[in-house]
């Protein structure tokens, strides 16, 4: 039902090419997350799908129909904006009802749908307030409510949680995931928060300068990044990359994630001095100045009692080593 296919789609603003030819297929019911550094074209790609930008060339098929030239309203998609884009002069009820009014639906049906959406999103007691009288999280829910009443073929989210504080983000993240599970509708979600990407996605699309670097499930991207860019982008703290003599000559560079470096205070593969240790309680991140290699980050589960200046040893798990060639491709 909600399958979206991009075929050789490109976009340039004047002379500046933002999206080089790009192919992507999003299956019906999938939760797809676009991640990538700032300015890589995530929003542009989303807006192309929404129809808010015209593509420079290529074709978009939504739900089996060619949508390349369709105006946004006829694509059957709903979008949730980073700024929420609520209508400030309307009550919450009217905000949520707006798309239905525009579809000239009859009043009783509108009321029923608005009440139902408000119930799902815990907004029932706020229906007669204006957006200005709501908290950030409530506004976000109104924006989502406005999207779900239309029963779209797919939802588009552009960094919907980036204006919320950390605790609320976790909550809303769960709510959106639950919504996806209960509606089963295709969702495309733009973020540069990789926890959101890893936890919510069925499929992650990693973008870099408008190009797709890799597409895959979160665990695939984590276990088998196809190049150094993806390796560095997925996982936190970033993967350690080591170049030079330590690679053993078979690769240009090797990479090892902090959680795959065993820490020890008496023996190991690499010896080094602790420069910073971050004690989070559940984990300890230790930044080690390794002799002849550089700074490596290692993660120890639980509490690992070391301090600045302590001598430690690091041992990589051999089956967790990533090898990259001179172009940065994984070997």
């Amino acid at each position, binding site marked *: 039902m909600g399958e979206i296919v991009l075929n050789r789609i490109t976009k340039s603003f004047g002379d500046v090419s933002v999206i080089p030819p790009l192919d992507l297929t999003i299956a019906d019911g999938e939760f797809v997350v676009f991640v990538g550094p700032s300015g890589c074209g995530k929003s542009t790609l989303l807006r192309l799908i929404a129809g808010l930008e015209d593509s420079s060339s290529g074709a978009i098929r939504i739900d089996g129909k060619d949508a390349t030239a369709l105006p946004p*309203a006829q694509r059957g998609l709903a*979008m949730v*904006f*980073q*700024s929420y884009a609520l209508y400030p002069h309307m009550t919450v009820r009217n905000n949520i009802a*707006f798309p239905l009014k*525009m579809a000239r639906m009859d009043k009783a049906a509108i009321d029923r749908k608005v009440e139902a959406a408000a119930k799902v999103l815990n907004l029932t007691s706020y229906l007669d307030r204006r957006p200005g009288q709501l908290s950030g999280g409530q506004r976000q829910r109104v924006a989502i409510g*406005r999207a779900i009443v239309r029963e779209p073929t797919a939802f588009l989210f552009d960094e919907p949680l980036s204006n919320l504080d950390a605790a609320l983000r976790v909550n809303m993240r769960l709510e959106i995931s639950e919504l996806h599970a209960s509606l089963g509708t295709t969702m495309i979600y733009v973020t540069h928060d990789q926890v959101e990407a890893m936890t919510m996605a069925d499929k992650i699309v990693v973008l870099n300068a408008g190009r797709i670097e890799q597409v895959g499930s979160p665990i695939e991207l984590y276990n088998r990044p196809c190049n150094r860019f993806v390796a560095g982008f997925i996982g936190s703290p970033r993967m350690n990359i080591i170049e030079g003599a330590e690679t053993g000559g078979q690769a240009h560079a090797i990479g090892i994630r902090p959680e795959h470096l065993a820490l020890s205070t008496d023996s190991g593969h690499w010896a080094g001095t602790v420069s910073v240790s971050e004690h989070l309680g559940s984990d300890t991140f230790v930044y080690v100045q390794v002799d002849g290699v550089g700074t490596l980050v290692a993660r120890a589960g639980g509490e690992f009692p070391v301090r600045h200046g302590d001598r430690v040893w690091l041992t990589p798990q051999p089956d967790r080593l990533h090898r990259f060639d001179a172009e940065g491709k994984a070997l």
Partner: protein
Amino acid sequence: MATAHSRAAARLTMAPAVVLLLGWMLIPLAMTLYFSFLRYNLLMPGTEEWIGTLNYQYFLTDPAFFTALGNTLALVGGVLALTVCGGIGLALLLDQPFWGRGIVRLLVIAPFFVMPTVSALVWKNMLMNPVNGLFAAVARGLGLQPFDFLSEAPLSSIVLIVTWQWLPFATLILLTALQSLDRERLEAAEMDGAGAVDRFVHIILPHLARAMTVVTLIQTIFLLSVFAEILVTTNGGPGNATTNITYLVYSLSLLQFDVGGGSAGGIVAVVLANIVAVFLMRMIGRNLDL
């Protein structure tokens, strides 16, 4: 500015300005009020005496007063309607990207910098004149009878002239308001299935409500006292056809030398302006606390 202490401090620091402003307003007002109860004719110096409310009785029963009141309301209402509608239209146009937009915007603002007397003279002699005017030339070019604007439709002509002067102001305010409209909000409405008309009615107009109120308020203050345009073009005529309250007060005081009657008219005008102000404030109170 929420604590009792800071409010008290605010009042104290504002006091000098308020006192100065009150004095500035109250002294002329008090003198006008005093004159309005006197027989005070410039042609009969030395005969000033207290005559109670006689001036008011004469002024309020003068048929010219009702004509002037009607003319004032027609002038204010007409110009407001035209400038607000025209201003929204122009603002929407000027908000579109097109080649030479900067220069066009500058040109649209230009009429605001022309003095009322000058613009009225230009309209009277160069545009609306039935013999030499541009409109007459165009009419003749099309084989039509030239139209004598200022004698056949005097009030409408003045409304047109004043509208031309105030349209830039309305456009400017509405354009700034339009530019502050969040693009994403319009895009959201577009995705919600709102066509151009629905977007205008449901998103753009409510967003402009505040600016429209400001335009209405400020223009009303100035439009109630339109004078130069009438003096220069029609002298309040033909008959009383273009006499508004301001012009009536002028003609009483300075054409008929009846300062007492003129002052009474002035006070009536102040009362009327305040009635209008109360209505406007009501309207604004609703619109401004969005």
